[in-house]
């Protein structure tokens, strides 16, 4: 069973997570300083999240397809993303075993991994709160 019921649920959880990261200066400042545009492309269920910090001032979070060319693209199954945010995925292992794909200047994205550590504590609550709620809403 997938960690996410559908695309809506996946994107709702991820967008809220990234908005929470955005509101926490301990994480957002370093992400803004990177001036990166990072896009996460998920599959099973599909989903796209884009984080745009290109001007170093605005931290923009997009869910779904956007006409923005990311500098770094990370692709993985949605389950792998879930396991990452609950701290169960070792990124080096995931890359060496082919579970994660990184496109672009990988070093820039990897440099941000330690910055995101506080989000590991935030994610479970967001996931728990939305898990099921979005899929219920979607199915009516």
């Amino acid at each position: 069973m997938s960690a996410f019921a559908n695309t809506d649920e996946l994107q709702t959880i991820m967008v809220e997570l990234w908005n929470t990261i955005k509101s926490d200066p301990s994480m957002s400042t370093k992400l803004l300083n990177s001036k990166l545009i990072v896009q996460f492309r998920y599959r099973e269920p599909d989903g796209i999240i884009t984080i745009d910090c290109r001007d170093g001032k605005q931290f923009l979070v997009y869910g779904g397809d956007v006409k923005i060319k990311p500098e770094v693209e990370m692709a993985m199954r949605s389950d792998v993303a879930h396991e990452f945010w609950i701290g169960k995925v070792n990124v080096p292992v995931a890359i060496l075993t082919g579970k994660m794909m990184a496109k672009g200047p990988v070093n820039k994205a990897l440099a941000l991994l330690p910055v995101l550590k506080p989000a590991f504590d935030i994610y479970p609550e967001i996931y728990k709160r939305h898990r099921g709620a979005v899929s219920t809403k979607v199915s009516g």
Partner: protein
Amino acid sequence: MNPFVFHCPTKVSFGEHMAATASDVVRDYGGTKTLIVTDEVLVKTGILQPILSGFAKDDYVLFTEVPPDSDIDVVNRAATVAREAGCNCILAVGGGSVIDTAKVVNICLSLGGKLMEYQGLNNLDTRLGPLIAIPTTAGTGSEVSMVAMVKDHAEGKKLLFGSRFLAPDCAILDPLLIVSLPPKLTAATGLDALTHNIESYTAVISNSIFTDALCIESLRLIFEYLPRATTHGDDLQARAATLVASAMAGVAFTNSGVGIVHALAHATGAKFGTHHGLTNSIFLPHGMQFNLDVVSSRYALLARNLGFSNSSNDEEAARALISAIEQLSTRVGLPNRLRDLGVPELKDTQLDELAFLASTDPAIMFNPKESSVDDIIAIYERAY
């Protein structure tokens, strides 16, 4: 036993005069027109002659413009030559820079499109055309690895490509091709292979008995034969052992990653153009000291396996391994301080910049111990 994934997509052919079989290998893989990627120095040495003699004149084109520090412009020029000649196979003859260049040319030739679209890790989803590699140094392991690095000098960037489809289809290891390698280069590339082994064996995900076995035997060969290969370049037994050891270390690190020593060597090399193997050899004992508290048992296992210690105390045995590496480095005539490589003394801001480069190098994520910028600077200063 822990679960693991182990890739070894490259067929390895080893033996004296084996390089002369390159044309047969090319034909085995369906190659009818081959781009031979190499460098001017090798052309002048005559090393290529036995390799070229197996090919009909119209069956290959030579590209000899690869510099020691290859670049995306070189890749594009080689790809253009290959396309214009209608090549469907690539043969790389040279050191790490030549083989890495050939890997990236293979992406251009096989997939077309914009090269930058393929930069990254696991970013290729299809097999490439046949690539055969013949190493002329014994250290980089590029002939069996799944990664390639080239520079974009215009942008001042280093481009990393990593995919299981990038590994050469066949590596031809011929010790006759490395007998003329100068002593200093022999020693430095040998220490590069040694560093691959030490870092692979202790990498954060090094849980494969396959990589462990490769590292242990490769280290044994290096410790036993590198001094002989360095002092007596024509000692074929020693040359053969170091060549095989390098490929074994290459298979190991491509499966488990490297670590903080490579991250520091990449950063220092990028700033000061220092030789990769030489820089690794200087950082290695300091990187090992840094990691000692988390991987002393792994170092100790190596020390006992290689006969450097029979102590049951892990830390004592681990220190014996570090000491053996320092002694080997001295014995093969390598310097042990960065200043000996002409690296200038750095100001605080320059140290910060170098530490940032090292801390964002992909190699560091495989290190068994997390490191802060201060840790990295401390290692650098000790190595200086």
